[in-house]
């Protein structure tokens, strides 16, 4: 039994890492831009399909596909921001939030319909064959371990970006006080575009990893956006650490719930956690209290 629980914890941590990676971009874009991007799951879905397509058509592996997908979605994210979000960027905060929800929801529905129409092939996910490592009765697949290592490297790289670079400091400054950042001369529009690009890139990278482990379909975007929202609210909207902790919490909770109560209860746990955190600490685990 204890080996089972450990196995579930390992599985839950990996799943949570993916959730965290997927949700991180959503949290950052909200913190910096005050934009609630409901098309976030579509970036993940498109990243997954692009990665799947690259593996299928070019015969490359998952990690090579990441090298193709990451720069592509950086550009897509920046263009998305400049074309669709920058024009509404000067509205008052509440108005901007509502406008961003409407714009991104519209894009999300359009992308989902277009992708479903274009992508006729049955979707199964990236084919792979990998071995497993057994440590004290716990089996860890090599591909999952590689993904976990990749997630850790990415987390360190993001930490360096956020803490050590001008762009990172500017992002943090905007998260802390948008008006203050403007006063000290931070180019809000440029930083916002880069931030949105990074957000889209992270979502797309999470999508490629998702396609390696799971099956993908053109209609998976909106449910994933909802899951990412749960993770972000759990961790604290706008927080940089929150999504990681929120993702891990959700991944572990889902794995343990499915084992103890049955698979059909796993999707409910995200909403139970969400309601619990909203009742007990509305700002989330790492969010600042109002």
């Amino acid at each position, binding site marked *: 039994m204890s080996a089972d629980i450990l196995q*579930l914890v390992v599985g839950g941590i990996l799943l949570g890492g993916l959730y965290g990676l997927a949700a991180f971009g959503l949290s950052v874009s909200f913190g910096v831009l005050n934009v609630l991007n409901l098309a976030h799951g579509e970036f993940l879905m498109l990243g997954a399909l692009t990665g799947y397509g690259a593996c299928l058509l070019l015969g490359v592996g998952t990690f090579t596909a990441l090298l193709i997908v990451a720069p592509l979605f950086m550009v897509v994210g920046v263009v998305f921001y400049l074309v669709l979000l920058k024009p509404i960027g000067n509205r008052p905060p509440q108005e901007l939030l509502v406008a961003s929800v409407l714009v991104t929801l519209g894009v999300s529905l359009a992308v989902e319909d277009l992708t479903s129409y274009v992508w006729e092939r049955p979707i*199964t996910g990236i084919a792979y064959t990998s071995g497993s490592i057994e440590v004290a009765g716990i089996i860890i697949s090599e591909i999952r371990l590689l993904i976990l290592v990749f997630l850790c490297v990415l987390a360190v790289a993001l930490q360096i970006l956020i803490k050590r670079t001008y762009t990172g400091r500017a992002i943090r400054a905007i998260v802390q006080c948008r008006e203050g950042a403007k006063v000290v001369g931070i180019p809000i529009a440029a930083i916002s575009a880069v931030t949105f690009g990074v957000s889209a890139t992270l979502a797309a990278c999470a999508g490629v990893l998702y396609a390696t482990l799971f099956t993908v*379909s053109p209609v998976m975007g909106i449910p994933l956006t909802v899951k990412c929202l749960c993770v972000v609210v759990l961790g604290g909207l706008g927080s940089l650490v929150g999504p990681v902790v929120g993702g891990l919490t959700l991944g572990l909770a889902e*794995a343990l719930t499915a084992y103890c109560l049955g698979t*059909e209860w796993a999707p409910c746990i995200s909403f139970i956690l969400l309601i619990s955190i909203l009742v007990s600490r509305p700002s989330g685990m790492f969010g600042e209290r109002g």
Partner: protein
Amino acid sequence: VEAGTAGENHNIPFIAICANSPKIYSRGLKWLVGVIDIGPRYTYRYWEMIRAGGKAKSVSFVVEDSLHPLGVFKGSQELAQEAGLKVLSSDIAPASTQDFTPVIAKLKNENPDIVYVASNIPFAVTFMKQARELKLNPREYHCIHHSGVFRDALGDAADCVVGQSYWVGGMKLGDTKLIQEVLSRSGISEPMYPWAPAYVAAFQVAQAAIEKAGSLDKKSVIDGLKGLKIETVLGPEQFHETGYGSINTYPSQIQKGKYVIIWPKEVATGAHIYPRPPWE
């Protein structure tokens, strides 16, 4: 289920080729017939084979919570018990389930002879990928849908998986020449589109019904369909009073990338490999 009312609303004969959920045929629809047998009997030949083999003693079900897999599962559970197997567990999971670690952990403790996955292909592919990662080694995997899409996504992890096929090349059943010609002329590869032979049978059914009616009068055609008894490319076809047909699938096993019909002996194209070689 929703589409089934289209024929009813407009009084048009509706041939629902591969629709086999019992829910469709419990609605009293008068203008609809299905070409294939009802879902709960979808794998009855597989259970006949298991009973005849007498080697498997237990089964655990992993079921996708959607209409067709649930219908197949409900019948299979009963058929498995009738075949003398002990049903160890039945885990019904949402169609969107992506992490099967908890299910696989439970299955490892149960150690069933057969893990029977009643699901559509994406669900089965995810489950099988993770089953291999976590080295779940039952003596047999049965995935009700194991087409070329399933095989290609899993690579050698698909080897020895048993599933259901309407027809495969080399099978001595019906007019094999016609199927081969139709598939070849339309550029369809049977493993990628395993339901294509059933569509050929459906066209034969439609042709026979129109010929029997002698005109395109809708009422005459549906009456002709309901009373039809013909020999199709997939064997004899006739319709139950509620509308479902009699054509059914055969158990087939993926052996080194090829699909081999393993039961019954009269139409089998190869031998059943049981138990499957475990994943090391």
